[in-house]
């Protein structure tokens, strides 16, 4: 008796869930998709095979490049779960290694900027050096070798410009009063002079202001750059930003015509809604949902709020990666994917050794 009731209950509930559930492509369904977590696991919905299927994933998954430049990248990652897409984003921020200044040996600093502040400022300078060519340096190593250390020297002394007349501009009055990254001189460690050419290892930008001096003041120091992770210190992060957003989806539930169509268009960013036709035949259509800023303006209008549905496509990620200039952004994403793969392989090895 109870078993029959339970079966009936299961059947009703299963059908209820099945009706709620829609494929992510069809758009978000309020009850199921209001959370960010996926629920498409085996056993969750009766009649659905939700087991992981590599073939199906390979078939459905795609990447669309949108724009790429030397330091910026935008691409779409479609057909993947947020858990994995988010892993790539997190790895980009914190687990793709780069080289950064870690040790500063100050021989003389008579500038007004304190030693520790100066050292911190130096640390944040992006260093153009391919981290894949270097090893990690062990923590107790103070010397460094050609494989794990890049050395720079910063030796600047400010002097008076004796030729300056009738001016109050510090640029004319003094020489070397602005210490910038172009003053950082590369010192080859060990055999680095044979492997790297002059200009291979340098700060990404040569116009970053490090300190300001006045005549008589000087800075004399050496720095060691080592390989590190963004999770240890943000200065090692290879990206300025790495983020994704979901592709917005706007559904017009009923045809919207005439003046209402014009009003609808004004509720969204330019280009999202277009109005076709003339006079009272004007009809609104969704032209490019990608340009939508996900503003909820349309829901403030009583005559429009029941005619549109705002949602997002849950498996369509619009990635935006901005490199600091150390590595091109497409290489960074590749490295991030490889980091996740190497994590998996490390634990696969550990697991097979343990058993």
């Amino acid at each position, binding site marked *: 008796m109870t078993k029959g009731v339970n079966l009936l209950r299961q059947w009703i509930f299963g059908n209820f869930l099945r009706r709620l559930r829609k494929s992510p492509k069809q758009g978000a369904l309020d009850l199921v998709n209001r959370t960010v977590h996926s629920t498409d696991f085996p056993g969750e919905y009766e009649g659905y095979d939700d087991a992981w299927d590599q073939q199906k*994933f390979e078939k459905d998954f795609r990447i669309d490049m949108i724009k790429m430049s030397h330091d910026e990248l935008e691409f779409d990652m479609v057909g993947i779960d947020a858990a*994995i897409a988010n*892993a790539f984003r*997190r790895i980009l921020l914190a687990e793709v290694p780069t080289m950064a200044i870690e040790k500063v040996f100050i021989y003389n600093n008579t500038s007004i900027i304190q030693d520790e502040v100066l050292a911190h400022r130096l640390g944040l300078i992006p260093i153009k050096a391919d981290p894949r060519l270097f090893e990690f340096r062990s923590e107790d190593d103070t010397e460094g070798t050609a494989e794990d250390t890049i050395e720079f020297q910063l030796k600047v002394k400010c002097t008076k410009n004796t030729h300056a007349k009738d001016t109050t501009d510090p640029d004319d009055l003094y020489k070397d009063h602005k210490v910038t990254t172009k003053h950082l001189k590369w010192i080859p460690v060990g055999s680095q002079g044979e492997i790297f050419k002059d200009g291979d290892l340098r700060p990404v930008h040569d116009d970053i202001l490090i300190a300001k001096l006045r005549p008589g003041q000087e800075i004399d120091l050496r720095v060691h750059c*080592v390989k590190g992770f963004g999770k240890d210190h943000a200065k090692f992060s290879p990206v300025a930003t790495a983020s994704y957003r979901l592709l917005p989806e706007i559904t017009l539930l009923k045809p919207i015509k005439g003046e209402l169509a014009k009003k609808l268009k004004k509720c969204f960013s330019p280009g999202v809604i277009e109005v076709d036709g003339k006079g009272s035949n004007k009809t609104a259509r969704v*032209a490019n949902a*990608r340009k939508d800023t996900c503003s909820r303006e349309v829901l403030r209008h009583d005559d429009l709020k029941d005619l549109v549905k705002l949602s997002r496509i849950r498996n369509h990620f619009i990635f935006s990666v901005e490199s600091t200039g150390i590595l091109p952004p497409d290489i960074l994403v*590749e490295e991030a994917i490889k980091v996740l*793969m190497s994590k998996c392989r490390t634990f*696969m090895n550990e697991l097979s050794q343990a058993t």
Partner: protein
Amino acid sequence: MTDKTEPKPKLEVVETPGEDDETCKTFVFHNEDHTLGNSLRYIVMKNPEVQFCGYSIPHPSENKINFRIQTHGTSATDVLMKGLQDLNKASETVLQKFQKSVLDYKQGNYSSDVKMDDS
């Protein structure tokens, strides 16, 4: 930098008093966080053999995660192995498709139905 010098194993299994149950295990992943934790949890939960899978970071200043797997009967270790393999394979697919996409873009023969005119 830190995990290079540590000789400690990266993976441990929490010992439970009493009888050995192959179907329920808690693994400890050292030096890992939500990055591997959540993606691996997702892919392990995709396995029909799995009854429960979840992870936690016991303390924010301890660099480890506890990863729990309960199955309907198969060995939890095998399930974890399959999860790692699936995630590795999925990442490989992502890498391949990404590299192809970059190549196509650079060669200029890129065609996309995405509308994104800069206006």
